[in-house]
């Protein structure tokens, strides 16, 4: 009787292990698409970082040249727009077309004001990186306690 309970416990333990492996499998599978679902469909995904004295924004923009992008900043409002045509090269027939054409605008309210003069944006390997230095008043300051 007691040995049977040991067997049952071991079976539950194995099932738990299987379940945690399966859920981790699904987590990993879904994580790559999670941001896409949040952003609503086929908008390019973005990451936003705060380093203390500046913000960094990274945007996934494969195949988009800098001429097709427009970036606007006003105070703490940032707007990025762009497009990429789905151009079939001449003389080719299409077997599969998943990438599609993209025409998007995404806007953000930044946590604090940004010095628009000093913003830098570079695009490399289809990844846009923007460095947005904070306005002086918004930078963190050390307060000395007397």
């Amino acid at each position, binding site marked *: 009787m007691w040995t049977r309970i040991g067997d049952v416990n071991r079976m539950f333990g194995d099932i738990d292990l299987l379940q945690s492996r399966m859920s981790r499998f699904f987590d990993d599978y879904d994580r*790559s698409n999670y941001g896409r679902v949040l952003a609503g469909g086929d908008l390019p995904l973005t990451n936003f970082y705060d380093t203390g004295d500046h913000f960094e924004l990274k945007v996934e923009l494969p195949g988009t040249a800098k001429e097709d992008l427009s970036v606007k900043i006003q105070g703490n409002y940032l707007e990025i727009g762009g497009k990429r045509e789905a151009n079939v090269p001449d003389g080719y027939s299409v077997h599969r077309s998943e990438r599609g054409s993209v025409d998007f605008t995404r806007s953000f309210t930044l946590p604090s004001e940004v010095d628009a003069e000093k913003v830098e944006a570079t695009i490399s390997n289809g990844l846009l990186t923007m460095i947005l230095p904070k306005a002086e008043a918004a930078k963190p300051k050390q307060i000395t306690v007397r």
Partner: protein
Amino acid sequence: MSERKDIVKREEGTERVHRIPMAAPLVDIYENDDEILLYADMPGVDKDGVRVNIDNGKLELSGLRKLVVNGAANWEEFGDVEYSRSFSVPQTIDINRVNAELKCGVLHLHLPKSEAAKPRQIEIKAA
């Protein structure tokens, strides 16, 4: 690629390990008389991270992206990823002449057809 093998081995223990998730890159496939052309979206992957492997009629693409992160993230919609996808290629491809380039985060893969496979006009002779 070897780091993925290590992580799988250690998983048997109780450590929580962060694995790089895999995703399938979106592709466009085109064809004309001379070649098959494949475009694959792999943003953020640089030339060293891309691997194209053709073996026995199977084409495997993979691209590894690791982000260089400064500061605290307010939000992250994408992260490190291993893009991976495989296809069957027809016998008519000349493997020696396959070439690829990575432009703006998009992999352009050219699979030229071997001479014997190109379409030919058959001339009808009057008899």
